[in-house]
C-alpha cells in the first residue's frame, strides 16, 4: 500500500466505517465499502482526501441502493450489534428498539439531508460537507436545520410523543 494511502487509512478508516455503519446499518458492509473506497484512492489519489473519501463512500452506498432495488431486495441490512456481553435481554430489546426507531426516522429524510447530517456528525465542517455532497456552503446550515428537525419529528412521531413546536 502506498504511503499516502496508508496515512489516509490511518486517519479516516474508522471515521468512514462509522459513517457507513450509521448509513447502511450493517457494520460488515461498511467495512467492505470502506475497503473499496481505499482501493479507489490507490487508483486515483485524491487531492482533497477527506471530502473525496466520504463522497466516494456515499456514492457507493447510493449505487448499492440502486442495485438492491433492481434486485428486488430491501436495503434494510441492519443487524443488531452487541456492544457488551453483559447486556440483559431487556436492555438489548430496548436498545434495538431505539436503534430501529432512529434508523426508521433517518430513512424518512431526503438523501441530501441525511448525508449532510451524517457527515456533520462525523465531524466535518461546512466546507467539507459542501465539497462532499456538492451543496453550496451557504446552504449547509439550512439543510442541517431542516434535517435535524425532521429527524427528531419523525422519531417522536413513532413514539406518539408531541412533535417539536415550530
Amino acid at each position, binding site marked *: 500500500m502506498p504511503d499516502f494511502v496508508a496515512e489516509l487509512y*490511518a486517519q479516516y478508516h474508522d471515521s468512514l466505517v462509522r459513517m457507513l455503519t450509521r448509513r447502511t446499518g450493517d457494520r460488515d458492509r461498511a467495512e467492505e465499502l470502506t475497503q473499496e473506497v481505499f482501493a479507489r484512492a490507490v487508483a486515483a489519489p485524491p487531492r482533497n482526501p477527506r471530502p473525496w473519501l466520504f463522497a466516494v463512500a456515499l456514492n457507493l452506498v447510493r449505487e448499492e441502493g440502486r442495485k438492491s432495488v433492481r434486485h428486488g431486495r430491501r436495503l434494510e441490512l441492519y443487524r443488531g450489534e452487541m456492544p457488551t456481553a453483559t447486556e440483559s435481554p431487556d436492555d438489548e430489546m430496548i436498545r434495538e428498539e431505539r436503534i430501529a426507531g432512529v434508523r426508521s426516522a433517518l430513512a424518512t429524510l431526503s438523501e441530501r439531508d441525511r448525508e449532510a447530517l451524517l457527515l456533520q456528525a462525523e465531524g466535518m465542517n461546512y466546507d467539507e460537507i459542501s465539497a462532499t455532497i456538492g451543496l453550496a456552503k451557504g446552504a449547509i446550515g439550512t439543510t442541517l436545520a431542516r434535517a435535524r428537525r425532521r429527524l427528531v419529528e419523525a422519531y417522536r412521531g413513532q413514539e406518539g410523543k408531541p412533535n417539536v413546536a415550530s
Partner: protein
Amino acid sequence: MSHLEEGVLHAMLDGEVASTDLKTIQVHLNGCPACTAKFDEARRLRDEAFGMISALDGVPAGLAMAAASFAAPAPAPLTHEPSRRKRVRAWAPPAAWAATIVAALGLGWSLLADRQAMPLPEARADQAPAAVAPPTVGAAAEPADLAQRTATPPKNEQPRQRKPAKEPATSAPPPTPTATSVVRDSALGARRSAEELAVAPAAPRLEGELKKDALKRANSIADRRSALDEVVVAKAAVPSISADQAIETLGGSLRLIDGLTPARFERAGDLIRVVYETRFGRLILEQWRAANVVSHRLIAPTGAPSDTVSAWTERIR
C-alpha cells in the same frame, strides 16, 4: 435587522459563523426574545439529533446521547457585554441550587404520581441530597472544578500526550444545558429533566436498582424507551478524574489541545472528557476507545467563532 434564519442559528451552534459576523448576530440575539427562543430550540434539536445518530453506534451511543445532559459548555451567545456576564455568573450558583430543589421536588412529585404513594426506596431517597452539588452541572460545579485544577496541575499532564491527532475533530456536537437552563426546563414542567438531574450523580451504585425500577414501570414501547433514557443518563454521570486515570481508561492514549491547559478530566463509563475553560465557555474534547482505536470529538462552546474552532481542531495532539 430582520429575524435570524434557522440556518444561521444552526451554523452558529456548529461553530460555523466567522468572528466578523458573530458580533452582529449576538447583538441581535441580545435584544430579540423570539430569536433567542429559536436559538434554544435549534440547540435542542441539534443535541437530540446528534444523540439519535450516535445511538446508531455500538459503543458511545448512550454516552453520547446522555452527554448532552451533563457538564455542558456554557452556551455563550449573548455575553460579550462584561456587565451582563458578571450578572449572569453572580446568580448562576443560586440558580443551580434552585434547579436542584425544583428537580428534587419534581422527582418526588413524579414518583409519587407514578407509584401511587408507594414509599421511595431508602437508597433512592438519599440521592436527592446527593444531587445538590453535582460536580459537573453548570456553575454549581465551579468550586469542585477549582479544586480539581489544583489537584491535577497541567504541567504534569502535558508530557502525557502520546501521539498526534490523526483525524480532524468535529466542529460542534452537543453542548448541554447549564444550571440556568435546567431551572428553566423544570419551571416549564419538563419532568424528565428534573429526573435526570436528580438521578444522575449517585447513579452508578444504583444502576441495577434503576434498571429494575424503570423497566418495571415501562409498559409500552415509548415507556421502555424513556426507561432506557433514564438508565442511560444514570450511567452517564461524569465524575472528575486525574490525568493518569484518563490515560489508563483510554489504554495509554490521551489527546489534548496544544496550547490550552485542561481544567479537568471527566469520565462517564468508557468516555473521557477533557474540559477546557475558554473565554467562549467550556470546550470539551471527548475521547473513547473502541476496538483498540481511540476516537475523539471536539465539543466547542456555543457561539465560538468558526476560525477559533478550526484553530482548536488543528491543535489536537
